[in-house]
C-alpha cells in the first residue's frame, strides 16, 4: 500500500508543488529571508522541491541534496529555511493524500503519517547534520586560530623577550602562557621577560594568580619577569582585591618596562646625534661658502 501512496504523491507532484510554493512564499513575508531577492528565492524553492521529490522517488539520498545544502550553507541561508520547507512539505503532502482518499479510518491515517514521516525525517536529519557539521568545523577552526594567538612570545632583542597578552585568560590559556613562557625563556636565552597585559580586560584573582605563578617559575629558571601595561583601573581593582604583586617589578607601560629591561641587561637607549650633526655640517659648509 505504501507503494500506492507514493505513486499518488509522485503523480500529483504538480499540485503538491503548487501548494507548497504558495505556502512557503506566504510564510516568507514574516521571515528572515527578506534580504534575498525574489528571483533567487523562487529558483531556490523550485530546486528544493524538486530535490525533495527526487529523493522521495529514489527512496534515498542523492548527491544533489548534499550539493544543494552545501551551497545554501556557503550562501549563509538559515537552516530554518530548509526545516520549515520540509515541514511545509509534510503538511501539504498529508493534506493532499487525505483529501484524495474517500474513507479515512484511523489505521489509514496513521499509515499516511508514517509514510510521509519516513520520507521527510531522514532528509531533515541529513540537512541538520550537514549544517551542524559545518558549524562545528567553523568553531574548531576558530579554536585553533585562537590558540595560535594565545600566548605569543617575541624575542625583541638579545636577552629580552616580550609576551603580549590580549583578551580573556582562562585556565587553558593560563597553562599555555606558562609553558610558552618557560620554553621561550630557555630557547631565546632571555634574561628579562616582559608580560604585557594592556589587552587583558579583567584581572581577577585567578588571572593574577596565574601571572604570579608564571613569574615565579621564570624566576626559578634564572630570569626576571616584569609585568607591564597595567592600566589605572586595573591597578585599582588589584589593590581592592588585596592581591600582593610586590614580589616582582611592574611598570605602567611597555616602554618603561623595556627601559628597565635594558638597564637590567646593562644597556640603555642612546639618542644618536647623527642627524643633528649632518645639519650642523651643512650649515658650517654654507658659512664657509
Amino acid at each position, binding site marked *: 500500500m505504501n507503494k500506492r501512496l507514493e505513486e499518488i504523491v509522485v503523480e500529483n507532484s504538480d499540485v503538491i508543488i503548487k501548494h507548497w510554493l504558495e505556502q512557503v512564499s506566504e510564510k516568507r513575508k514574516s521571515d528572515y529571508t527578506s534580504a534575498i531577492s525574489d528571483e533567487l528565492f523562487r529558483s531556490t524553492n523550485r530546486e528544493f522541491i524538486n530535490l525533495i521529490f527526487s529523493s522521495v522517488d529514489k527512496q534515498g539520498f542523492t548527491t544533489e541534496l548534499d550539493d544543494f545544502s552545501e551551497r545554501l550553507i556557503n550562501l549563509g541561508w538559515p537552516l530554518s529555511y530548509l526545516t520549515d520547507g520540509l515541514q511545509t512539505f509534510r503538511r501539504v503532502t498529508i493534506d493532499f493524500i487525505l483529501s484524495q482518499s474517500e474513507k479515512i479510518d484511523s489505521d489509514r491515517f496513521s499509515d499516511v503519517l508514517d509514510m510521509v514521516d519516513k520520507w521527510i525525517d531522514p532528509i531533515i536529519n541529513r540537512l541538520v547534520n550537514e549544517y551542524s557539521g559545518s558549524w562545528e568545523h567553523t568553531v574548531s577552526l576558530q579554536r585553533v586560530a585562537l590558540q595560535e594567538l594565545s600566548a605569543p612570545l617575541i624575542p625583541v632583542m638579545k636577552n629580552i623577550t616580550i609576551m603580549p597578552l590580549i583578551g580573556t585568560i582562562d585556565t587553558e590559556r593560563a597553562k599555555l602562557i606558562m609553558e610558552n613562557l618557560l620554553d621561550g625563556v630557555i630557547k631565546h636565552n632571555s634574561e628579562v621577560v616582559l608580560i604585557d597585559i594592556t589587552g587583558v*580586560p579583567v*584581572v581577577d*584573582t585567578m588571572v593574577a594568580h596565574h601571572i604570579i605563578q608564571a613569574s615565579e617559575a621564570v624566576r626559578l629558571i634564572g630570569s626576571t619577569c616584569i609585568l607591564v601595561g597595567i592600566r*589605572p583601573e586595573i591597578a*585599582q581593582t588589584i589593590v581592592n*582585591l588585596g592581591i600582593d604583586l610586590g614580589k616582582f617589578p611592574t611598570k605602567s607601560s611597555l616602554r618603561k618596562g623595556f627601559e628597565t629591561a635594558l638597564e637590567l641587561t646593562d644597556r640603555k637607549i642612546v639618542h644618536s646625534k647623527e642627524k643633528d650633526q649632518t645639519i650642523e655640517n651643512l650649515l658650517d659648509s654654507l658659512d664657509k661658502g
Partner: protein
Amino acid sequence: MDFKPCVNIRKEWDIVGARQLGREKAKEIGFGTVDQARIATAISELARNIYLYAGTGKICFEIVDDFEHKGLQIIAVDEGPGIRDISQVMEDGYTTSGGLGAGLPGVKRLMDHFDIISEVGEGTEIRASKWVR
C-alpha cells in the same frame, strides 16, 4: 527596580559572558571606567566561585534606582555544597583550591554592599551592589 537578566554558569566561558553583560549594564547605568572594571572583576570572582565550587549556578543583574541609591546589584545563586564557615571564607588568604584566597573578601572591598547567605548542602546566594557616585 528593573528587569532581571541572568546568565547561567555552566562552563568556564560563561564567566566571560556574565562579565560582559555586567559591564554593559554598568556602562548603561553610568558607571565610570574604574567602577566598570571593579564590577566586571567582582562578577568574574563570583562566577568563578560558582564554576569552581558549585559546578553550576547563575549570575543575575538588577538595576537599583530608589530614593537613596542608584546602582547595580549582582546576585550570584547556586545550589552547590554551601559554605560551612562564612567568617573563614571572608578572611584574606583562605583558599581551598590553591588560589590566592582573595576572591570573596576582594569582592566585598570592590563593591559597596555585600550580603552572603549560605546553607550547607543547600547552596549559596550572594548579593553585591555598587552605587553610582
